[in-house]
């Protein structure tokens, strides 16, 4: 088995298993339907010193999908891109192309290879895979808030702020929030709408972006406003029809 990965790079950060790897993500009429077009040239470097040599190349394409596309939902082609031979009789073949899923959900292109002949090498193979996938939209699973103070205790290095379902704040202090999705946001990302039950005291931006591939997005809250009494404020996040809330309590200054 010849295993290649489009994301693999050498020590200089250059791809060293698949070059010219591209994926075009085309949104179709149904907003959940995407056409993914993968192209690239796999550096299979598959050789033979004489007799027939056969193997299968598996190219990890760098995109995860929830299930293997069915017949009618994909098509693929492969071809010889670079071959070499120092004697005259030879065979070079790319054959039987298919797709598969690795256990981590990464889409894989498979292709049988064959080489025969003295000093013969099938150095590179080209491919194009066209796949229609249904992108399941992410669900909003949590809205968390934080006073943004570093975590950690005495004799411990400061850690990242702790986010939770509620927070107690003083007047005139910064705070922040975090929205959490159940799966990575699809390209080009999603916006989660935000609102506050008391915008002058604990204001929030209109929305927070969750970048493509991320499962969470952070937003800053406005510095808390003045209150005379302890005030509970509900922060609401909404994605599609799903809402999540968090509680911000602002305490008045000590007298």
């Amino acid at each position, binding site marked *: 088995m010849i295993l290649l990965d489009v994301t693999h790079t050498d020590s200089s950060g250059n791809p060293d298993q698949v070059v010219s790897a591209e994926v075009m993500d085309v949104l*179709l009429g149904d907003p959940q339907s995407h056409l993914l077009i993968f192209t690239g040239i796999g550096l299979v470097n598959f050789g033979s010193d004489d007799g027939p040599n056969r193997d299968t190349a598996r190219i990890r394409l760098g995109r995860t999908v929830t299930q293997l596309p069915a017949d009618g939902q*994909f*098509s693929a082609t492969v071809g*010889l891109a670079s071959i070499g031979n120092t004697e*005259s009789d*030879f065979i070079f*073949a790319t054959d039987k192309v298919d797709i598969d899923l690795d256990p981590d959900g990464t889409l894989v292109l498979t292709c049988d290879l064959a080489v025969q002949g003295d000093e013969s090498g099938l150095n590179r193979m080209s491919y*194009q895979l066209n796949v229609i996938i249904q992108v399941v939209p992410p669900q909003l699973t949590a809205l968390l808030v934080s006073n943004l103070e570093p975590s950690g205790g005495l004799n411990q290095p400061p850690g990242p702020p702790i986010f939770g379902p509620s927070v107690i704040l003083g007047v005139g202090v910064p705070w922040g929030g975090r929205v959490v999705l159940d799966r990575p946001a699809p390209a080009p990302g999603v916006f989660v709408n935000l609102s506050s039950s008391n915008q002058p005291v604990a204001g929030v931006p209109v929305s927070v972006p969750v970048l493509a591939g991320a499962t969470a997005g952070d937003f800053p809250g406005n510095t808390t406003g003045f209150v005379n009494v302890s005030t509970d404020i509900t922060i609401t996040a909404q994605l599609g029809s799903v809402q999540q809330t968090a509680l911000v309590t602002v305490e008045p200054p000590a007298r």
Partner: protein
Amino acid sequence: MGGCLFPVETIISTQNFKLSLDVDQCEVESHRFCEITVSGPGRANRLVIITGIAVPAADTNSPDPLFRGDIFVKTDFIITPPDEFLNIVDGNQNLLQATYVTLADINNESEGSFIFAVDEASTQRNVDGRIQVNIRAAMQGDVTLARVAYQASILFHKAG
């Protein structure tokens, strides 16, 4: 194409050969298509991307002449009325197509010079409605052009 016994060898003896390969007759490996709903250009509402590896197994068995000919790949994608493929974009009078082909399996069976070539490619709709990929190919030397990969992208208007 599980279970297919693909052609082993087709001797090419004429310099303007014609080979017809049928997806339904186990003469094409890994044939597939995916049909995509689109909204244009014109009245086109479907893009179909058809791929596969045709198995001409064309063996020259003669080192001297340059053999050039046509390979026809009959796919299993069919356009029949009321679906339309003519006069859907700016009065087109031929199937709207973009066709790509490449060498997939080549054999040189003796020492000496050789040529393998895919010179031209196009896609048409046959009178029976089947979509057919046309490949103009050439070979020279004691060689076999065993397999040729193709991708045909076509546009049409699906009724209803």
